[in-house]
């Protein structure tokens, strides 16, 4: 609930993040990117453009606010964090970002240490709602004598407290709360710990880059590395750029903008063509539907998991290595779509545009790296449109390439992938029985895998998605989740054909 509220609002965290994306896009568009010293000067101005007040609004002082913006700018450029002047000035390494290839690193989601306010994790605390009542049921139900009383209120001795939460339910004034760090509460793979200053730190061995902590942190202390600067440089160099756009693009740019106008807008930026990733989803449905049948009915596997959400696949590999054979690993919709373009145009440079930060990590997989050159989010795309002063409502309503089926377009919502599989399997393998189990957060996905492992699950097709509601709830979206889901449903139903197998371009 709390998570939903923070996500549904345009907070100052979102505002600053988007301003950074707009300013870094302008940096490349309005300057000669080969003039590194000029770019360095301009980079130093960005924190002052964004934090342009005399007094601090959020932190101790404007200097700290600007230092944090400077770190965000580095991540937006694709660079590692600065983390202090001992290694050089804040512009260190900018030359390496000013090229037409992305900077490759597995560390995509990062905590900006200065921005982390060290909030307490896993703690039970008495709030000032406490009346220090005569009954004090809190201390009566406490099994470890953690309570004492000051003149005003009850206090919990944290060293004794075992977090049993009995006191929470006992207090008649609801004055006792359990507090988890918003970032670690949002993390489904327990990848967030603390450094020796008690600031949040991400364990990249465990992290699957889903980005949910980015959306959860009320201080904006977590951010993802971007590739949009390198995309813009590629466009400036007139490389043969092709955009592939994830099915959740519908409705992301305002209710009155049509899908055709979004595609025209992307072409106006300089992309030669735009292909829906829903086309690749049709390919995935058909190839992996066949594989599902082979593995369940031929090889005697009890259940098979879908492949398209990279955070879910990576979580399975990292947390349940024994089960990785149960997750499909053929080409995901993103890869299938990129391959479709590169088969036709071998020198094409493919940029995936989607809701997802985990796709940035998927694009680094050895089997993917040759197909997908860049990954940016809808948020990063919108920042480019705004930096170029492109108004989508004024774009042509040119014809949409009808590349995809309705079921492929529905991949973006929870349940959509499994339903597409089921429809395909029912048609081509009528003897098979498909039983679906689906989850749409990594915590719940892990629960589903535990059940599968223990044999208590009847399902034979597991759909895992890391974000709430599916891709529509990804960390890089613009539109509210419920709204996007409705729009996707409508768009899918209006498709020329619904089943993946009816897509004439799929063999």
């Amino acid at each position, binding site marked *: 609930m709390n998570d939903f509220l923070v996500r*549904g*609002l*345009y907070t100052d965290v*979102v*505002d600053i993040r*988007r301003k950074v994306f707009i300013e870094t896009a302008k940096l490349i568009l309005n300057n000669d990117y080969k003039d590194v010293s000029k770019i360095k000067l301009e980079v130093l101005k960005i924190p002052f453009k964004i934090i342009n007040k005399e007094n601090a609004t959020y932190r101790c002082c404007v200097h700290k606010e600007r230092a944090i913006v400077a770190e965000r700018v580095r991540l937006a450029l694709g660079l590692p964090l600065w983390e202090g002047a001992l290694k050089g000035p804040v512009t260190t390494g900018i030359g390496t970002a000013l090229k037409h290839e992305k900077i490759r690193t597995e560390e995509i989601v990062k905590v900006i240490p200065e921005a982390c306010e060290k909030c307490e994790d896993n703690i039970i605390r008495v709030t000032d709602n406490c009346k220090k009542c005569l009954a004090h049921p809190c201390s009566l139900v406490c099994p470890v004598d953690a309570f004492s009383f000051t003149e005003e209120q009850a206090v919990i001795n944290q060293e004794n407290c075992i977090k049993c939460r009995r006191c929470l339910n006992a207090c008649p004034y609801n004055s006792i709360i359990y507090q988890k760090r918003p970032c670690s509460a949002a993390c489904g793979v327990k990848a967030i710990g603390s450094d020796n200053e008690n600031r949040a730190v991400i364990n990249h061995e465990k992290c699957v880059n889903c980005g949910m902590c980015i959306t959860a942190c009320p201080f904006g202390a977590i951010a993802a590395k971007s590739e949009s600067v390198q995309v813009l440089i590629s466009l400036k160099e007139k490389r043969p750029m092709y955009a592939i756009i994830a099915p959740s693009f519908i409705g992301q*740019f*305002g*209710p*009155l*903008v049509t899908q055709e106008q979004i595609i025209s*807008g992307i072409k106006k930026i300089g992309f030669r063509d735009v292909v829906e990733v829903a086309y690749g989803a049709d390919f995935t449905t058909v190839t992996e539907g066949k594989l599902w049948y082979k593995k369940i009915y031929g090889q005697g596997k009890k259940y098979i998991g879908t492949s398209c959400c990279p955070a879910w696949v990576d979580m399975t590999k990292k947390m349940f290595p024994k089960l990785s054979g149960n997750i499909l690993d053929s080409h995901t919709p993103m890869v299938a779509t990129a391959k479709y373009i590169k088969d036709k145009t071998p020198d094409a440079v493919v940029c995936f545009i989607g809701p997802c930060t985990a796709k940035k990590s998927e694009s680094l997989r050895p089997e993917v790296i040759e197909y997908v050159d860049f990954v940016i989010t809808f948020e990063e795309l*919108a*920042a480019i*449109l*705004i930096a170029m002063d*492109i*108004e*989508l*409502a*004024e774009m042509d309503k040119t014809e949409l390439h009808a590349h995809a089926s309705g079921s492929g377009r529905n991949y973006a919502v929870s349940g959509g992938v499994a339903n597409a599989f089921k429809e395909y399997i029912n048609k081509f393998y009528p003897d098979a029985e498909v039983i679906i189990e689906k989850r749409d957060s990594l915590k719940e996905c892990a629960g589903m895998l535990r059940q599968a492992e223990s044999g208590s699950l009847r399902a034979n097709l597991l759909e895992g998605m890391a974000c709430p509601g599916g891709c529509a709830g990804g960390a890089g979206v*613009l*539109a*509210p989740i419920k*709204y996007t889901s409705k729009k996707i449903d409508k768009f899918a139903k209006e498709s020329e054909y619904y089943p993946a197998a009816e897509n004439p371009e799929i063999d």
Partner: protein
Amino acid sequence: MLKVNICSGTQCAFKGNLEILEYLQEDSIFKNKIKVVIKNCMDKACRDDKAPVVIIGDEKIFNATLDKVLKLIEEKLK
């Protein structure tokens, strides 16, 4: 019924109007008292960094935020 025009042009949508729109559409307190209208780029009113733009009755709010919008609606409904 108080008319609330929300610009959903690319600038305004990106800078917070999608969230303001969603909030007003879901808000149960102003329900039946306001009429939310989605507009496409109202004569570039947002130029010079004034996005997002919301018009409540006949009053324009520049650099609109949810608190500004709710406050003005509350005032106009008095």
